[in-house]
């Protein structure tokens, strides 16, 4: 019996639902989120001795998960250079802007879900960590390995884009 390992697996099992939601925030797709979750769990088990008991287990897992996701993006898009997070951030933001007219005309819940899926991965993951998990900007910055100022700007952009799905007057944007 390996007590430390048993404690680790118990923590991992307990963290699975939140980790899964974080994977979902990265991928925006349930199937991909579950694939990422599976990979993250396997990697965490493989590297369990690197976790220092008493430190933030969830942050350790989230960083591991995010790195896996970035690796996945790199494999899928090997010619793209990733800076500060995800380069496709820019492309998807532009895509979201192009959808504004469509979104303004639809006020249903489905359109909001659609807009959530259309958020870029960096924006959605920041939104998840802060709006859903209730983390501070500092915590989110540590997990995502970005400055707190970037957390703040990404979060406001995420909320800004989503707010259009509510059929706003356009005054805000």
């Amino acid at each position, binding site marked *: 019996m390996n007590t430390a390992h048993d404690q680790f697996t118990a923590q991992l099992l307990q963290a699975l639902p939140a980790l899964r939601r974080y994977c979902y925030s990265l991928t925006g797709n349930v199937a991909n989120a579950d694939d990422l979750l599976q990979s993250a*769990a396997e990697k965490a088990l493989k*590297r369990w001795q690197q976790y220092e008991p008493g430190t933030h287990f969830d942050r350790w897992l989230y960083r591991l998960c995010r790195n896996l996701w970035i690796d996945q993006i790199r494999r899928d898009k090997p010619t793209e250079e990733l800076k500060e997070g995800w380069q496709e951030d820019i492309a998807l933001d532009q895509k979201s802007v192009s959808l504004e007219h469509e979104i303004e005309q639809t006020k249903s819940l489905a359109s*909001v879900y659609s807009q*959530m899926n259309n958020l870029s991965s960096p924006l959605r993951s920041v939104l998840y960590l802060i*709006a859903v998990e209730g983390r501070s900007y500092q915590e989110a910055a540590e997990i995502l*390995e970005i400055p707190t100022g970037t957390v703040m700007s990404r979060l406001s952009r995420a909320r800004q884009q989503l707010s259009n*799905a509510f059929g706003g007057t*356009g005054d805000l944007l």
Partner: protein
Amino acid sequence: MNNNSVNPTDLNDIEKLSAYLDNELSPSDHAELETRLKQDTQLQQALAKLEGTDVMANEYFSELDKTPMPAGLEDMIRNAEPESAPVSATVVDLFKHKVKTVVTQSWGLASAASVVFALGIWMLMPPTQQNINADLLAVLKTQPSGSIATINSELKIEVLASYQDSQGNVCRSMIEHTPVSSNPAVACLNQGQWQIDTTDLVEKYQTASSSQRSNTQQLMTPEQEQLWLKTLAN
């Protein structure tokens, strides 16, 4: 729209409203925004819209909980056998402060490069860690590729090759030999700090005869390595 109203093109206003929701504004900004909110209905509406997105985000993510976990995942975790050797690249940040302190204490490092050890198996040697770190640093800074340095009766370091990675940092691939195992590792000198990586070494670590070396990594010739070691010694 009065002068205090939210400016649709002012990202600063939107960021402030967003940060206000999270109670992340400085006290002065918080107070200023509250004053404006009392006077400006448009600003209040903008805040409400932003707040509404959080409700939607929570619904969006809670939907996921209604679908079952991937089949077999929880059983796989419960039945996992513990791996014996830790490896990771991302561990650098986690251990940076702790290990940096250890090495600084043991070396002083007045003129030498400081060391950040992202240690895998190296971390498992606490009683003599400081000496091992010092000995390892000495090996990295002095031993030519192809040499084997004896650290103690249970640990030898075999230096395989020196090369420049894609960022231009000089790296040294090596193998740590213990009585029970041999573990590859790569040490890279990055901005005056040695970083040791025991992760994903299939891709990273280089032997002098490696045929799979990345095009972005330049293997040093013995002459280049000798010159570089002399530079380090100075």
